[in-house]
């Protein structure tokens, strides 16, 4: 038996239905429309109450035979929109339509309710899906915000840790400077064999500690994004040859052999950092090798279109090797091969992390091939700009080859730390130099007013007046009296690129690191002595007091 669509059933299935006569009068309306638009809807002219959004027609008669879906809009309430089909039956146009909900579910301030929709109409489901979708978007935003906050917290904690490490390392380096300086001084004196052996252990241990501190400080700079690379011409052959001398000594001490392949050419780059990378890899290789040896290979590729030369450095050893799992975490900070490695071999586990950062900053890659018990090969791939060897100045050889006496140099050293003053004095003594000491910047300026000096070694961080302020004051005095500027060299543990730039900007001529490298100090003083010697025959304006 066919289902008879009586009024009750039609109202249930189409709560927003309309029945319109061919003349355009509304003869019946579903309960939902009556609820929203009022009882007066029935009997009105259809076109007084609704307009067609789709299809674009203006006469009800055009609906006859219309097979398209239609969209109606109420003229009383513009939020109320209906969609559906038109069927003609019993001489009436039946608009079997349902509500199109607004985003908030309201039509003209009144809420659409469940009963406005037929149970078979999925419009409510669609509305619910849009609500769920909206809620999911809010979830995503909330989670993203929470994760960002957590990430910021983690970054702040990491920064604090890095800063703490840097501060502690720096604080330890200052007394270590004293220890190593005095040990170096003692090494230059007459000692019994057993005393010399004991001192050698002190120096080795101190150097080991210094290496660790330098690693921590370097890594702190990497973390803080403060590590900057130089880009200067350097002789690769000289770098390899120079470094290999030390590698060879270390290998032989352990009963290993060391070989390096010949390198050639001048390149633009950061020579110091490249030496640091290779030293780290070679010393690591020596550390983890008991038998056999270590080889440093350098290979050159064809010059690329961009003018860069591919270089491959490989450090191969016949040591203990490592598993794939260990290799995977090898270049991460504070990681070492095995948990027992730190106990057995020492070290911070920072060296390779620093190497990776340096290599990546140079635009290269670092990798490792290894097997347990079968040795390892560390590989660094870089592309460097080849350059011409700089022409040698004719006078240089005669100058640098000539031994000069430092004894006649008048050196003013400004240093607030008593230990550092003793160390500096002890290191200068074998060179025949007896410096005058100032304990702060203000004292240095006063002494400069009173006496003549050939060179000033200036600590940077001092009480009362910093090294920078003192330098500015001295330069001002020189300028006022038209005196020739006295060479001023910073003597400081703070040798980051921008710090050195700051020293030079305020009038200093150079900077020496702490702990003091004796050869570096001697080189600087020799440079001053050469300049002084060259200046003989011309009026020695250094000696004029700049008062």
């Amino acid at each position, binding site marked *: 038996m066919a289902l008879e669509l009586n009024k009750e059933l039609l109202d249930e299935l189409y709560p927003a239905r309309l029945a319109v006569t061919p003349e355009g009068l509304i003869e019946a309306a579903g309960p939902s429309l009556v609820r929203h638009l009022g009882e007066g809807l029935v009997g009105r002219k259809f076109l007084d109450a609704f307009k067609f959004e789709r299809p674009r027609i203006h006469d009800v008669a055009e609906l006859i035979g219309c097979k398209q879906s239609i969209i109606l809009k109420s003229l009383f309430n513009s939020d109320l929109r209906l969609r559906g089909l038109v069927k003609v039956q019993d001489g009436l146009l039946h608009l079997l339509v349902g509500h199109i909900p607004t985003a908030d579910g309201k039509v003209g301030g009144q809420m659409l*309710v469940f009963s406005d929709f037929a149970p078979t109409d999925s419009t409510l489901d669609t509305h619910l899906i849009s*609500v769920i979708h909206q809620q999911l978007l809010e979830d995503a935003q909330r989670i993203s915000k929470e994760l960002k906050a957590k990430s910021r917290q983690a970054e702040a904690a990491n920064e604090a840790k890095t800063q703490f490490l840097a501060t502690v390392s720096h604080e330890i380096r200052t007394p270590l400077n004293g220890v190593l300086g005095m040990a170096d001084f003692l090494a230059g004196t007459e000692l019994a064999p057993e005393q010399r052996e004991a001192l050698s252990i002190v120096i080795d241990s101190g150097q080991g500690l210094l290496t660790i501190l330098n690693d921590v400080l370097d890594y702190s700079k990497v973390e803080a994004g403060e590590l900057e690379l130089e880009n200067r011409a350097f002789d690769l052959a000289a770098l390899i040859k120079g470094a290999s001398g030390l590698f060879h000594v270390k290998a032989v001490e352990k009963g290993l052999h060391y070989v390096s392949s010949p390198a050639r050419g001048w390149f633009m780059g950061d020579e110091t950092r490249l030496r640091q990378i290779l030293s780290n890899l070679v010393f690591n290789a020596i550390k983890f090798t008991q038998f056999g040896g270590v080889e440093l290979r350098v290979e050159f590729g064809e010059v690329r279109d961009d003018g860069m030369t591919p270089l491959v450095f490989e450090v191969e050893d016949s040591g203990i090797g490592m598993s794939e799992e260990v290799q995977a975490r090898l270049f991460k900070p504070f990681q070492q091969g095995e948990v027992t490695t730190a106990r057995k071999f020492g070290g911070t586990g920072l060296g390779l992390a620093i190497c990776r950062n340096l290599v990546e900053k140079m635009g290269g890659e670092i990798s490792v091939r290894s097997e347990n018990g079968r040795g390892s090969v560390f590989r660094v791939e870089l592309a460097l700009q080849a350059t011409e060897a700089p022409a040698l100045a004719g006078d240089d050889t005669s100058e640098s080859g000539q031994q000069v006496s430092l004894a006649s140099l008048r050196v003013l050293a400004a240093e607030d730390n008593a230990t550092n003053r003793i160390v500096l004095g002890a290191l200068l003594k074998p060179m025949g130099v007896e410096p005058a000491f100032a304990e702060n910047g203000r004292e240095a300026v006063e002494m400069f007013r009173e006496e003549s000096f050939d060179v000033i070694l200036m600590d940077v961080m001092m009480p009362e007046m910093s090294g920078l302020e003192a330098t500015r004051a001295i330069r001002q005095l020189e300028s006022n009296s038209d005196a020739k500027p006295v060479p001023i060299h910073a003597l400081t543990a703070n040798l980051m690129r921008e710090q050195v730039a700051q020293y030079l900007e305020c009038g200093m001529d150079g900077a020496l690191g702490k702990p003091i490298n004796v050869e570096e100090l001697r080189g600087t003083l020799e440079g001053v002595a050469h300049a002084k010697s060259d200046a003989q025959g011309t009026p020695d304006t250094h000696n004029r007091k700049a008062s």
Partner: protein
Amino acid sequence: MYGMIHQAAREMVHTVADAETWSVILEKSGLDEEHFISAQTYTDDVTFALIGAIQGVTGMPIGDLLAAFGRYWIEFAASTSYRSVMEMAGNDLESLLNNLDRMHTSIKSTMPDADMPSFIVVHSDAQRLEVEYRSSRSGLEMFVKGLLEGLLERFDDEGDVSFDVREDHVAFTVDRRAAKVA
């Protein structure tokens, strides 16, 4: 249960306690961010772990806690994107209860894994409303009692809610006479 329940629990703790208490509860429950996706269905043991952790930290009797959570759920749902759906479901207790199954049917059609309860209003007059509650879960009667109390509050209505556990359903009664007498 779906993640929105977990979100409501989190908000309730933040409202009646503080963020620190919530951190302790979260740690005890073993839940993390992934358990707070509103439309995601989680196994009941996850939800019960959370409720258990709240109970453990607050020391509230479980029945009181569930009733308070039921009342809070209505307030919470009305503060989210689901507000419009709640409004469409009705603006009085009977209409809303009558529409709940339809709402749950719609949700179920979108989230097939969700295990939705059923509410059938079997009697309603000025004095009393009786509703049959069916669910595959047991032990949540106090939560439903809180829900009904929350709905009464939402519609500025008054009444005492009681329940009687039957063989295949729980019969809830909202006694409006008591409130009116008072």
